């Protein structure tokens, strides 16, 4: 099975510290990591490859530094990697990004595309579904589990708010997964030691069948009008009291925020 995994390099939001003076986020010196949902997608792809054979290809769009992430994915056991990088791609929203990714994917052989559900820096959850639309293939989002292949169908369990649905989807298809789904493996020294020597495909605008008006700012229907950092609430109350009284106080404080749900 040829599997394509869509990955993104994001700032490690857990490493972001708060400036106590200004109550804003300190972004300088924050390390980049692979988006956690995408790492879960890579893990699912590698598990499918171990079960059914085939090849795992990762694709990312981003600045040249994203190469480091792709090299680390090689060290996990990924077979092939593409980096879409071009100044003309800058400013792309999720729509334009999905179009660029799709333009590359159309030139590749694949049975399945796995994407992370969403990225921790943007939280849009749009790229996976939009890529499926551009490619005109079925999609199942927010998976709980991949059951396995049944002839040309992939059987998956999808998570909704209160239910788990078992679905069969005809391949080629796109699925999105969340980090809760698995425990990603560690890099292994065999793949790690040659991960810098492996070929990595660099692709620019000129390599793809795309029009300038469809990418970058020009191709992006959504525009960011303004961004600002919401002041972080760090004030916490501290009170010493008997355990029973403390429990009552906590419940009283939280009760207005609790949604009482009656389900099933």
């Amino acid at each position: 099975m040829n599997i394509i995994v869509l990955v993104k390099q994001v700032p490690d939001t857990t490493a972001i510290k708060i400036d106590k003076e200004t109550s804003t986020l300190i972004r300088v010196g924050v390390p980049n990591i692979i988006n956690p949902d995408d790492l879960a997608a890579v893990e699912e792809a590698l598990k499918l490859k171990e079960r059914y054979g085939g090849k795992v290809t990762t694709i990312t769009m981003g600045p040249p530094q994203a190469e480091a992430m792709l090299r680390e994915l090689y060290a996990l056991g990924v077979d092939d990697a593409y980096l879409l990088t071009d100044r003309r791609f800058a400013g792309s929203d999720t729509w334009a990004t999905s179009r660029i990714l799709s333009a590359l994917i159309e030139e590749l052989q694949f049975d399945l595309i796995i994407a992370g559900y969403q990225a921790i820096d943007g939280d849009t959850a749009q790229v996976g579904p939009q890529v499926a639309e551009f490619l005109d293939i079925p999609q199942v989002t927010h998976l709980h589990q991949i059951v396995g292949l049944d002839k040309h169908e992939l059987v998956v369990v999808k998570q909704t708010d209160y239910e788990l649905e078992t679905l069969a989807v005809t391949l080629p298809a796109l699925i999105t997964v969340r980090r809760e789904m698995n425990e990603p493996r560690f890099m292994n020294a065999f793949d790690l030691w040659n991960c810098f020597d492996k070929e990595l495909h660099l692709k620019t605008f000129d390599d793809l069948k795309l029009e300038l008006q469809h990418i970058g700012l020009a191709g992006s229907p959504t525009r960011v009008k303004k961004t600002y950092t919401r002041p972080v609430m760090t004030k916490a109350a501290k009170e010493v009291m008997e355990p029973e009284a403390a429990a009552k106080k906590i419940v009283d404080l939280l009760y207005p925020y609790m949604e009482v749900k009656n389900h099933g």
Partner: protein
Amino acid sequence: MKHELLIKMLESYASTVVKSRAHTIDEEERFPLETVKELGRYGLLGLPFPTKWGGVGADTKAYIDAVRILSKYCATTGVIVSAHTSLCSHPIFAFGTESQKEKYLPKLNSGQFLGAFGLTEAGAGTDASQQQTKAIDRGDYYEITGNKIFITNAGYADVYIIFAVTDQSLGLKGISAFIVEKDSDGFTVGPKEKKMGIRGSSTCELVLQKVKVPKTQLLGKVGEGFKIAMATLDGGRIGIAAQALGIAEGAFERTVEYIKKRTQFGRPISAFQYTQFMVAEMKTKIEAGRLLLYKAVSDKDEGRSYTESAAMAKLYCSRIAVEVADQCIQLLGGYGYIRDYEIERYLRDAKITEIYEGTSEVQRMVIAGKVLK
């Protein structure tokens, strides 16, 4: 870049999985077979050997980083890797025939086989020349009889490098090395020794009773055994120095975390100058040890003689491992003495590094011998 990424991988694996098992395997004196399986899968049992024989194709530096970082969290795991790599795979790689390498290295490098080394005997410790184990030439095979003691990985290893006397009259040149498989008739493993530290690792006696070893299992030439043993131990000492440095680093990191949080007299104890001076001294010792260790490593990787630098690295790193672990317990006070706080284990684990693969006294003999020759 590769080394940096390898260190990242080692830290992520060791600081989670290996660390989580360290206390239990010490308490239960249980050999961590599940870890050994993982080590094989992650390539950590075949780092410095060519891909041609199923190795990772990395270098001594990568291998030493692995032993050091594993030992930061679990010295038992560190010595399993060190004994396997330095004392079994390495002599086969360095002295074996092509067919011996083909037969054993892929299995050793993938972790399908675990390796061990049998030189020490009851009467042949530091004076390893006093071998009593005999190998009698029976035409197309050797018949080996004798006892080996304190053998690391014994009982779990599949392949043992065994030293035995082939010609008593030749002295040091009458000792030969053999590759012996665990299933050989007459080969048995004694009960596990109960040790002060590295209690998850396996240390046993080997009993060889007329074990038939085909001539193809002779490692190197007849009479080269002592030379092979000494060369092997030169490399092994770098591994033990790495284990010792890892122990010192591990105890130190845990202690620094603790002293920043532990409050007495209204301040974290790290605010007291006496604590700070101890921290400064320990850190300096660790960095000095690191320089000696990686000097020996680069001597080996760049093809220079490393007998002396390996001995100095082991002598120094094992000493500071004991000192640093001891001072870390002191900084944790009563908690340091409680086993659940996992600091006292570092001192118990550190002590062996001054003893095995050549005591500190032997290292001094080696160093002085080089200086005064």
